[in-house]
């Protein structure tokens, strides 16, 4: 997908209507991250039960790419097993950093368009890095 279409078809939609935006009072894992380039900030909260992401919410401010990516990420991971979430995260980053494609990424593949502007890749992967941080805490906390 060309960057312009990505903006028009996906980013603007998620920017205006971010999915799972807000706070999760009964969360049992959370993490936050920032991208100094655009001043992006993402706070992510997860409710994980029996190895499954039961619920997820995010909030924060920043550019449209970071917000749309976070929004779509929450849609993707909700209801999935942690091990599958990790795989998707890895594949998403491989797509952005190395240009690898994978059918499993589904709609997320749209973000491949960001590769034409390498400096903005950080915006797209920010929420996924925050997600990995949160998952690490679950590992530690058991």
């Amino acid at each position: 997908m060309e960057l312009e279409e990505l903006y028009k078809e996906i980013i603007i939609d998620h920017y205006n209507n971010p999915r799972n935006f807000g706070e999760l009072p009964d969360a049992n894992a959370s993490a936050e991250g920032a991208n100094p380039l655009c001043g992006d900030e993402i706070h992510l909260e997860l409710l994980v039960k029996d190895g499954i992401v039961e619920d997820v919410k995010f909030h924060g401010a920043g550019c449209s790419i970071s917000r749309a990516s976070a929004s779509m990420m929450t849609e993707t991971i909700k209801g999935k097993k942690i091990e599958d979430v990790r795989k998707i995260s890895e594949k998403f980053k491989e797509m952005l950093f190395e240009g690898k494609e994978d059918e499993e990424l589904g709609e997320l593949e749209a973000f491949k368009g960001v590769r034409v502007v390498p400096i903005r890749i950080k915006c797209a992967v920010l929420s996924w890095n925050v997600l990995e941080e949160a998952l690490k805490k679950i590992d530690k906390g058991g």
Partner: protein
Amino acid sequence: MDPIKLREDFPILKIKVRGKRFVYLDSAATTQKPVQVIEAINNYYKNFNSNVHRGVYFISEEATRLYEEARMKVSRFINAESPRTIVFTRNATEAINLVAYSWGRKNIKEGDEIILTEMEHHSNLVPWQILAKEKNAKLKFIPVKEDGTLQLEKLQELFTPKSKILAITHVSNVLGTINPIKEIVEFTHKNGTLVLVDGAQSVPHIPVDVKDLGCDFLAFSGHKMLGPMGIGVLYGKEKILEEMEPFLGGGEMISQVWLERATWNEIPWKFEAGTPNVEGAIGLGSAIDYLKKIGMENIEKRERELTAYAMERLKEIDGIRIYGTKNPELKSGVISFNLENIHPHDVGTILDQEGIAVRVGSHCAQPLMAKFGVSSMVRASFYIYNIEEEIDIMISALKKVKEIFRGIRRAL
């Protein structure tokens, strides 16, 4: 001056970016280089490459002559009293650091005051923060008003007998505000306070005469005035430079060296330790030749035309917020703005897709961003090679950004 003809001297302006015509509107970050400058550097490496001030052989003497000739050109360009007052540095940042370390360490004592403004680039802020911390000195700031000018009414209450130096930018790299340096220097000197002027955004764009301004130090960078990167200038009044201790130690800056001690070379070489950037100095000399041929008055006038044109056309963009004054008579060719509810990096990315280079971010002036309540801005800046048609291209692209983001709602 004929901008269309002049553009022929800048090969990079002919490239295509993302299949589109390249529109460079980021000259406040660095300017493009004319073939004359590129050729001068080429000529040095092809015919005279050798170390300076050392060789007894022909090409070294030639290299030394070219290097010192460049210093003479800089000296005349800013109307300095003598080339002895011109120290070559890496850039304006290093020139300011030189003063903060060398002059500052000797002259700033506990409780002394260093006066700055709220519109300083980090390069004229952080070196003073380091010095103030080390010496337990105090930093004080001349506030910036909403219209992007300095609150000069505050000078009287701000300055005290403990105010040792004022470090102030001549032209804001974000707002384009031209500060009335001459008047400020008159006031400051009456108080017995020295003045360092950050000329990084003024020397390339308007006539700068250090005798007329009366400042004690002036710092600027070669790469923002058609010259190469890695060469900058510190001008300092002769008497002050002579009383200053060296900045860096090494070869060139010494007179005699024993195992336990050394004596210093004369100014300006006292401040130029190690092999200098000969290519950079020669390139800067050539850039000055180029600028002088056009004439700094003409450059100022042309940039004002471009700024006025851009200001007029930017009125077509709904929801634009322009920071600082909108009056082209009061500013240099720098316009910073934001589009309502659209992140500046998104604006920058879409403009880039159209082949347009603008700067987005904090512009190395985070405190100024905070003052205007934003974390970043879009900045378009102009130079002698820009033409109205490029501003038209930017306006169309900004309209496209608006179109893409149509229906965007207020950020949550």
